[in-house]
């Protein structure tokens, strides 16, 4: 079950694609992640992650219209596949299950 395990950054990208739907493409994903997390993200990392997600079948893409801003090149829009949605929900469910297991005492950190 190789496809079901996704990394932290991959998950972030996948979520952003969902959030930007249907306008998710390289630059917008990059800018969105940067805005949300405050990390500086490079295009190549985003593309590399998108490539991996696509290989795992979590996203699919279609080419958009050409715009002058990109020197006449078309945008590649990404959409989450149903498998991608499933993976995301599973991941969320797993986390929430674990969250629920954490006793309250564990978060009472003594600051002194």
């Amino acid at each position: 079950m190789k496809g079901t395990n996704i990394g932290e950054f991959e998950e972030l990208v996948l979520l952003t694609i969902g959030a930007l739907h249907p306008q998710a493409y390289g630059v917008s994903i990059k800018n969105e992640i940067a805005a949300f997390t405050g990390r500086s993200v490079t295009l190549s990392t985003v593309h590399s992650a998108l490539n991996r997600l696509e290989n795992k079948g979590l996203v699919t893409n279609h080419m958009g219209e050409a715009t002058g801003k990109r020197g006449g090149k078309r945008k590649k829009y990404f959409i989450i596949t149903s498998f991608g949605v499933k993976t995301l929900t599973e991941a969320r469910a797993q986390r929430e299950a674990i969250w629920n297991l954490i006793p309250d005492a564990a978060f009472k950190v003594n600051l002194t």
Partner: protein
Amino acid sequence: MHQGKYHTPPILAQRFLRWFCKPALVEDIAGDLEEDFNDFVTDYGLGRARYKYWLAVIRFLKPFAIKKIHITTTQTIMFKNYFKTSIRSIARNRLFSAINIIGLAISMSVCLLMISFISELFSYDKFHENPDRIHRVISYEQFLQNEPQGVAATSILTGKRLQAEVPGIEASVILNRRFAGDASFQNKTVSLKGLWASKSFFEVLSGFTLLQGNAETALLSPNSVVLTEEAATRIFGTANAMGQTIEIRSIPFTVTGIAKQPPFNSHISFEALGSMVTYENMLKQRSKSGNWLKWTNVGNDYVYLLLDEGTEPGSIQASLDKMSEEENLKIDRFKIYPELQALTSIMPGPALSNNIGKSMDSSILSTLFILTTIVILCAAFNYTNLSVARAFKRSKEIGVRKVVGANKGQIFWQFILEAIIISLTALCIAILLFYLIRPEFLNIDPMVQQATKMIATPALFAYFLVFSVFVGLMAGFFPAVHLSKLKSTNALKNAPGSGLLSRMNMRKVLVVIQFSLSLIFIISATISFKQYKYAVAFDLGYNTENILSVRLQGVDPTKVATAFEAIPAVNQVARSFDLNGLGNGDRTRVTLENSADSAYLYYNFVDENFIPLMEHKLLAGANFESRPGSREESIIINERTLRKFNIESPSAAIDQYIQLIRGPRLRIIGVVEDFVYTDISRNIHHFGFRYSNSRHNYINLKLNPSDLVRTMERVESAWNAVADGKEFQAEFYDQKLQSTYSQYATIYTIVGFLAFITISIAVLGLLGMAIYTAETRLKEISVRKILGASEASLVKLLARGFIWMLAIAALIAVPLSYYLFDSVVLSESVNRISIGITELFSGVLFIFLIGFVTIASQTWKTAKSNPAQTLRSE
């Protein structure tokens, strides 16, 4: 935010991206990057954005984005295939491959020699810190309207004026080459060779460094000397030399520095450096009139400049021109033009006299370069010739390749590769040959030996490799182009392409060129050998047999003379300043008293025994008489000088007076017959024998020729008894003469060797062509034989074409080499051989003979073959 002008990202970066990126991804990635780029431009400005774009492109060099490489694998497979077929074809045609490899190897060995020689010469003087900012001032001297003579030296005045007046010079140093002599410390005496150098020596010539002492002050004060490490150990042994006092030519010097040994590839070398101030003080004492600071005092002083960064040598040259204009006005009949010479063009450089150290004439270098190029071209011609000839046989292979789908480029590279494999194999043999002939080459001429060591370095081997690949390309280019052009249908039909016939003619032209060159070389070798023999046997006007010249090296002449006179086999003993006929000589300006005429008079200081010993013929007057004291009173001149001063007869000259410029007034007491004083290639000079009993460098012995070996031993032991440890340096006069004319010997050795090589190569080529012709015409010959042709007529038929080529080659080469020697090489020489039929045609005959034997051996074999056998195997 997205307003304003639209910007395109760096084009080179985009191209780079497109080059490495997968085609499926490239549109999206490029688009995203471009969008990002425009955001960057608004945020950071164009410059930073471009930089960031580049960075972003480079970040995409990740496995997911990079193209998969497929093409290279097919390329390596094809390369392997070319390699395999090349090796097979070389192995199949063993004879032709051997001819090619041997020819190339022989000529390449000569080229390797040349490469190592040239690369070593060009490494000269590069060890200084700023070699391109260092310049030397040289001079061109012109007397009246004569041809200006180049001198490596300049006057001290030029150096001083440059220092004082001309801007743009960071530092300059004045050197003088007359700092040599015996250095004594306590009881030890060692002879040193060195230079007088002014204080900035180590600043200008920064490649010379001090191991001990301060480079800035070492040559500052009077009576200081800097010794090289090696010289210091010779004098002081292991003891510390710094601060010690040594005596050089009875002047005390304090050692203020120990210098590192000057590198071999420096045109300046020294064992000791004396401070220039000392020398200047000496000069000031010697001549109160300030003669040494004269503009015309060019001979032994050298000026080196370190220009400021950014100073154009042209601006310094302009100042020099202005200076010479001013100074030349002050002098009569004589003009001196100083010129700036870059340090890097000294070695090799123009031919100059009065060199400070080693020198290598760049014209010699270019001559050698041209000769070796000719040799390698000859070998390349062989390859081209034989390959094109054999193209006929390989056309089927090419046809099949083309039908299977090979394109022109692939066929081309296959044949180039074959040529390169041949030339690399030749290189291996050539390197062996290189080691064999290297010692011979170094011994050819003292100048070569002085200037180079030819040690094989890795860089040198890299040059060799590059050179051999280049030779392969050169030799293989024409056949490769020709063969790759063949049409597959023609090639398979075995019909030669339309161009092949014209190429047959080109091949003939190449053979003719090869043989013309071989002929020129062999004729040149013969002529220069004759000239050498002639020069050595020339009647010089005095006797040279059984005369032993011993170098005095500062040992007291009287003591040595007494010791030698005691030996019974020594018939006569005479002392002299210099030896006649060895190419150099000292001269001075003289005038005849009561006459306006002046002349340059060459002179030699001798004692009263010299003229009888050398058997000079006195035409009038008498020989010198033994006389104590250093005052000079008399002179014996030659006939040439008489004519110069319009004195009718030798006896009329007696008791006239000759005034030496800056010298004494001398009475003519005798006249000798003309003889060769400098060397035979030049006219006889005005000459005078001057009498001295102290200024002698040589002691000449007339020996009884009966038992020379024993006599030599006795002379040497007599020398050792009086010379306090000085080495015995003696040479027979005629041997010394021979070495003077060694330039002719050098020419004939080099040219003779090249002749040998080009002849071998040309003969190899001829052999290849003869074999090929015989093979391809085998069937024709057989048919002719069956129809009744005699063997002799068949040989004639086959050989006729080659004989024609040889004849044309001779027609080209003979007049050309006659012209070369008659009007170029020997035209300056006064005493020379006349070039006759023997000189010109002995070489031609020799080559014809070799060529004929080569052709005949092959054609005879073919003519003798059994026609039934050849025709049956159809």
